[in-house]
């Protein structure tokens, strides 16, 4: 059979075929074989307890149903709600009832695997094989449940149906199917935690149908078994007491149980910890695990169907791990995570986890490996370890196939400082003909903020009026859908656009939807990137205002009376068209926002009385600075806007307007906004006083390192040098790509080129090795190193000169020139080369980073600088996080106007074995974008001539 196999794929195919055939054969063999075994079974099985209980219920022996004193080790552990599942067995003699129960269990598994197959079929990846494999994986556990007569089959079927309902988003079936295993074992109820991350409508229907199921089962018991309601309630108390007593009575350290508690108790048996501590630890760890899982479900959202299944499987793990005892029959539920791990792409870790589980749980049965190996494996909790490994694998995959939920983005937004998006400077549209006006309309389409067709159509109608009145030669209408339901094809957007005249429709551009872009400020930034005009009109679709405001505002901006004009909702001449039932709510919010505005004006130099109107007309010049420096993507974006206008001397005007309010904000959103305000205002306040909003006062003096490392590095440096941000370029002389774009670089006037002295790139070696050898090696070795340093310096200098480069300064790749002995070795050569300036990379910021060694080396190297009389300037080394925050960078440039600042830009990431593989791979591109944004500010000649002022203007028609 194996003949002719040439590659792995050829080998995998027969294995899959064998697995499928094996599963079918096993299924067919099991039915008669185990049916016979169960029928002839004489010893105790769990089913005997159900049979006995059904007798007691049918004979109304209520006090015996839950009686721990009589039943001792084998009490009935399921709540009175579960009676309808067992009570009919009393009609049959025990062997017959057992066999019926076996057949039922067999069918339960069959139905369960059918639903698993159905669920997997939606993923469209090897459905049959994956189902067969997961079946083979848990086959031994299924057989175990047949012999014990446990309810695992019923559990399995219900969980499979629940999974299917979860994947198909059917809350009714989800609610009913999950309630049954929860009634039986309580633990599976943890899966209901999935509702935390679901839509509220899904959760509501699920809870309603779960309640119906419980009510239905209770009604069945009350009417069919003729028990009084009071007695029925009493039996719930008895059931609870029995379960507690049983948990205390039963030794969970039994070798067969593979739960967390059992593992800890087995450890306690070895006297590594006390039993009390083991129980305490189990409770703490279990509670923590469930809480963490709930948090995970809340803060992540699956982005694939497989991930949705994996989310579900995490709940199964919580049940299996945190239960007091987890015997083999319970492990049948592992079929679900196994199936989802196997369907689709997986890494080596996932394969190892599945293989380890298969070997230690599925194969390693008593009859296969014998008692000598079986008991030690069980007692060492190796199957438990396998479950943990499978959990880790599932979690890994889940993380990979999920994204942050909108809930998490909301929370994260409270404290994070949003950065200017990468590529901001690059992405701005410049190729088309410049327009007269850009109308930017952010369209909220999220679960908390949903626009209405009326509001969008109203805004577009105002745009039309403006166009008709001003008759611009060219204009553009940018619609920016944002929020978790955002899509350019959203019916609200499509229907509104269709209603526009054809020639206007042609001017509409809908921006693509970004996953992370959830907020109005971010949406506006994205909209701005698509504009290409000198004047930008922004519409707040939630409270749009009439065209009269925009006409007034445009006139103010065009006549250079203002750079930014805001519609003032609190202006005495402003008017509201409002849905009457909202008046009271609007008044309350008005009062709240007046207090907010007063507080903001007290704390910050903001003159406007209405920060959040968001109906704005602004110049492109202001917008380009605003969006480069934007720190907030959400509510307080308007504070950013006003502060930037003030600090940069732009003139703001507030005008009255006619506003439309169709619906009021939801309470949840209002609360979140208040919370955001409380958290963020102190941050903004601190940043304002730390100079983060200050304009760029000095031309930045950046030195770009690593020219020659790769084509992308060279091109990145070149673009920044051409933009005037990079003033010096350090060249790796022996680099492979030295000549790429070199001639272009040399053409840039006033560019200073230096030698990036290198001992670690060519030949590649660790800088730490060189430091170690320089400090700790013997005299001979040190002499050899000295010779090497001198030789390398001369060689590299020679190469640069061959390229007609006369370096006027020197620094070191990985700051290797600071290594003890280096400068001493090559100092005279540097002087001979007429290089007078050498970098001393001492920066205060480095002391609190992992690069603190550079400061120490700088201190030690200082004496050589003095000895050779090298010049050096103050130095600032921006850390990774600092480089991403342009406002911080500006504050540092302003604080250290004459400092040399280093950067390592690249136009794109072309790292690899052919170029470079250092730790800077991902940072180079982000550095480039930050510096490109800085270049935009540099281009703006920063301080405008208009004096700082703010005024309320009276309306007048154009």
């Amino acid at each position, binding site marked *: 059979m194996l003949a002719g196999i040439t590659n792995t794929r050829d080998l995998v195919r027969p294995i899959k075929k064998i697995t499928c055939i094996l599963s079918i054969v096993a299924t067919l063999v099991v039915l008669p074989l185990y049916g016979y075994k169960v029928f002839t079974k004489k010893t105790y099985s769990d089913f005997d307890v159900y049979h006995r209980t059904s007798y007691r219920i049918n004979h109304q022996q209520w006090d015996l149903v839950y009686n721990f004193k009589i039943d001792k080790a084998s009490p009935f552990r399921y709540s009175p709600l579960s009676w309808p599942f067992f009570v009919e067995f009393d009609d049959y003699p025990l062997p017959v009832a057992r066999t019926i129960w076996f057949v039922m269990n067999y069918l339960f598994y069959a139905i369960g695997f059918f639903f698993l197959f159905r669920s997997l079929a939606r993923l469209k990846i090897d459905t049959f094989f994956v189902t067969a494999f997961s079946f083979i994986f848990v086959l031994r556990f299924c057989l175990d449940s047949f012999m014990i007569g446990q309810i695992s089959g019923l559990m399995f079927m219900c969980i499979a149906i629940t999974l299917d309902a979860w994947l198909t988003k059917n809350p009714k079936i989800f609610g009913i199917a999950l309630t049954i295993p929860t009634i039986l074992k309580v633990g599976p109820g943890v899966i209901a935690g999935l509702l935390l991350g679901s839509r509220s409508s899904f959760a509501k229907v699920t809870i309603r149908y779960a309640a119906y199921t419980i009510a239905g089962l209770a009604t069945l018991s009350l009417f069919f078994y003729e028990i009084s309601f009071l007695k029925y309630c009493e039996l719930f108390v008895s059931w609870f007491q029995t379960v507690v007593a049983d948990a205390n009575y039963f030794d969970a350290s039994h070798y067969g149980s593979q739960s967390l508690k059992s593992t800890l108790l087995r450890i306690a048996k070895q006297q590594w910890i006390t039993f009390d501590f083991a129980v305490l630890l189990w409770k703490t760890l279990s509670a923590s695990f469930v809480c963490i899982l709930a948090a995970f479900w809340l803060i992540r959202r699956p982005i694939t169907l497989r991930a949705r299944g994996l989310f579900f499987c995490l709940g199964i793990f919580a049940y299996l791990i945190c239960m007091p005892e987890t015997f083999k029959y319970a492990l049948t539920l592992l079929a679900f995570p196994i199936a989802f791990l196997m369907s689709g792409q997986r890494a080596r870790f996932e394969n190892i986890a599945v293989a380890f589980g298969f070997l230690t749980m599925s194969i390693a049965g008593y009859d296969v490996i014998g008692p000598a190996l079986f008991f030690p494996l069980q007692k060492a909790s190796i199957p438990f370890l396998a479950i943990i490994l499978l959990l880790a694998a599932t979690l890994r995959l889940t993380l990979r196939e999920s994204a942050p939920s909108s809930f998490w983005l909301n929370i994260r937004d409270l404290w994070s400082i949003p950065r200017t998006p990468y590529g901001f400077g690059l992405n701005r549209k410049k190729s088309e003909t410049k327009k007269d006006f850009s109308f930017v309309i952010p369209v909220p389409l999220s679960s908390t903020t949903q626009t209405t067709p009326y509001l969008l159509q109203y805004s577009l109608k105002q745009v039309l009026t403006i166009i008709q009145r001003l008759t611009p030669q060219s204009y553009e209408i940018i619609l920016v859908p944002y929020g978790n339901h955002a899509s350019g094809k959203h019916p609200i957007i499509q229907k509104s656009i269709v209603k526009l005249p054809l020639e206007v429709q042609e001017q509409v551009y809908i921006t693509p939807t970004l996953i992370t872009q959830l907020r109005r400020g971010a949406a506006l930034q994205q909209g701005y990137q698509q504009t290409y005009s000198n004047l930008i009109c922004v519409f707040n679709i939630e409270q749009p205002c009439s065209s009269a405001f925009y006409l007034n505002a445009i006139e103010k901006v065009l006549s250079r009376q203002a750079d930014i004009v805001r519609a003032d909702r609190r202006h005495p*001449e402003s008017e509201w068209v409002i849905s009457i039932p909202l008046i009271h709510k609007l008044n309350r919010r008005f009062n709240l926002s007046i207090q907010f505005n007063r507080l903001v004006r007290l704390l910050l130099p903001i003159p406007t009385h209405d920060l959040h109107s968001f109906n704005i007309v602004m110049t492109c010049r202001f917008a380009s600075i605003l969006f480069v420096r934007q720190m907030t993507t959400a509510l307080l974006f308007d504070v950013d806007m006003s502060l930037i206008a003030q600090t940069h001397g732009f003139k703001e005007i507030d005008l009255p307007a006619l506003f439309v309010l169709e619906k009021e904000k939801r309470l949840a959103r209002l609360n979140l906004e208040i919370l955001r305000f409380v958290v963020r205002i102190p941050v903004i306040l601190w940043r304002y006083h730390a100079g983060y909003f200050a304009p760029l006062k000095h031309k930045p003096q950046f030195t770009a390192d690593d020219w020659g490392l790769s084509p992308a590095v060279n091109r990145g440096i070149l673009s920044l040098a051409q933009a005037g941000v990079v003033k010096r370029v350090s060249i790796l002389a022996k680099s492979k790509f030295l000549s790429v774009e070199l001639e272009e670089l040399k053409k840039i006037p006033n560019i200073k080129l230096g030698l990036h002295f290198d001992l670690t790139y060519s030949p590649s070696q660790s800088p730490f090795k060189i430091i170690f050898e320089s400090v700790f090696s013997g005299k001979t070795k040190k002499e050899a190193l000295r010779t090497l340093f001198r030789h390398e310096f001369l060689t590299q200098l020679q190469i640069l000169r061959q390229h007609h480069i006369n370096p006027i300064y020197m620094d070191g790749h990985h700051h290797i020139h600071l290594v003890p002995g280096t400068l001493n070795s090559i100092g005279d050569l540097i002087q001979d080369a007429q290089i007078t300036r050498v970098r001393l990379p001492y920066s205060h910021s480095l002391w609190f980073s992992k690069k603190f060694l550079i400061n120490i080396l700088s201190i030690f190297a200082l004496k050589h600088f003095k000895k050779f009389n090298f010049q050096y300037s103050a130095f600032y080394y921006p850390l990774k996080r600092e480089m991403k925050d342009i406002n911080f960078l500006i504050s540092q440039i302003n604080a250290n106007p004459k400092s040399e600042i280093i950067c390592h830009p690249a136009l794109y990431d072309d790292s690899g074995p052919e170029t470079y593989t250092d730790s800077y791979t991902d940072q180079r591109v982000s550095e480039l974008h930050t510096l490109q944004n800085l270049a935009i500010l540099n281009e703006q000649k920063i301080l405008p001539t208009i004096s700082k002022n703010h005024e309320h203007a009276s309306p007048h028609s154009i």
Partner: protein
Amino acid sequence: MNEPLISFLIPAKDAENIIHHSATQVLQFFRKNFPEQFEIIIIPNSASDPRQKNTLEVSQQLALQYPEIRVCPHHFPLGKGAALKTGFLNSRGRWIFFTDADLPFDLSYFKDAAALLSNNTDLIIGNRRLDQSWAKVSANIIPFASKRHIAGISFNYFTRLLFGISTKDTQAGIKAMSRRLAQKAFEKQKCPGFFFDLELILTARGHQYDIKELPVTFNLKNSITTVKLFRDTLLAFFWLTKILYFHASGNYQHQRSRTPN
């Protein structure tokens, strides 16, 4: 002029500054939407009061200027309800419309009301508390509008509790009705003031006439109000008690004619 379809009643008190503008607005609206099918009746209230002389004069000038406008001065008793009754008694239209002299509501309401009246609805109430109702409010009077809204809701709640009616806005000064309802309502009218609206609704309900509600667009221009809190609360209490008494005694119910033994 033939018998018009619509009689539009405008009770006018202290309205010398606004009546000209309002009447011409109404005229334009009806000429456009109901050409040659309407009459406008201005009812200068308290016409014998010298302070209302100007209102009367401006109204009369309008009547001279426009053939569709007529003036029916009302003298006694004082009150909007009584003035409307005077207007109604002088009207000829099959449908009776009325609104306040300062036109606080958008007139487009009457287009929808006419459509409903032609479908045999007898009373169309303008309801400010429907979700589709809009208000145009100055930013500086939003607190006043809010208080007024709450007061209105409270009063309406109380009224609904007392009379078991379902409408959430009895007092909006914009209504349209059939002539047969107006006939009954003014016959049974007890209150000459602004509780006439309530009587109108009670009469329509008592006679099992078809009642519908329409959203309105409400224009709140300023926070000036004619309501005097103490006096009007007492008056409201007096009239509500009186109307409740008449309501309980079946005044607003349909009176079946007695058959002889």
